[in-house]
C-alpha cells in the first residue's frame, strides 16, 4: 500500500485543484454572462456564443497574466503577505 501521508496529501491537492477549477468557471461565467448576454432571449444567439467563446479565452488569459504577475511579485517579497516564495504553481 502507498505511503498514507502521501495519499492524504494527494487527496488534499486534488480537492484544491477541483476547487480552483470551480472558482475559475464560476467567475468566468459571471463576467461573460454579464458582458455577452445583456438581454437574455429565448436562446443563445450565434453572436452571443461567439462573444462567450472570446470572453472565456480572454478571462483565462487574464487569469494567467495575473498569476504570473502576482507570483512574480510575491517571489520578490513585495506585498509583505504571509505567503512565502514557492514555485510549481
Amino acid at each position, binding site marked *: 500500500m502507498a505511503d498514507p501521508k502521501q495519499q492524504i496529501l494527494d487527496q488534499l491537492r486534488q480537492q484544491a485543484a477541483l476547487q480552483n477549477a470551480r472558482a475559475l468557471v464560476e467567475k468566468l461565467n459571471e463576467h461573460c454572462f454579464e458582458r455577452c448576454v445583456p438581454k437574455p432571449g429565448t436562446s443563445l444567439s450565434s453572436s452571443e456564443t461567439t462573444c462567450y467563446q472570446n470572453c472565456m479565452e480572454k478571462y483565462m488569459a*487574464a487569469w494567467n497574466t495575473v498569476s504570473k504577475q502576482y507570483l512574480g511579485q510575491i517571489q520578490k517579497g513585495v*506585498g509583505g503577505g504571509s505567503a512565502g516564495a514557492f514555485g510549481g504553481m
Partner: protein
Amino acid sequence: MDNALGSLSPESLQSLEKLSPREKQELGQMAMQEVQKVQIQQTIHSLTDMCFKKCITSRISSGKLDRSEEPCMQNCVDRYMDANMTVIRHLEQLRQGS
C-alpha cells in the same frame, strides 16, 4: 479549504491515526503549504475578478488580451500590491504611535 478534512476518504482518516507523531508533524507542515497555495490561488481569483472589470471595458471581439489590456492587468496587480503595502505601513504607524 474548510472542508478539506471532511473530504478525506475514511481509509485515509484511519491511516491518519496510525501515523507516528513525527509523521503527523511532517504531514501537518506539508498540509499547511497546501493551504498557503490555496490562499494564493484565491488571491489570484479575486485579483483577476477585480482587474478584469477595470481593464476589459471595450467590446469583447477577440480571445486574446489586446495591447492595452495586458499591461493594464499587470499594472492592476502591481498597484493592488502597492495599495496593500500602504495599508500595512499605515497600520504599523498607528500601532507604534499608540
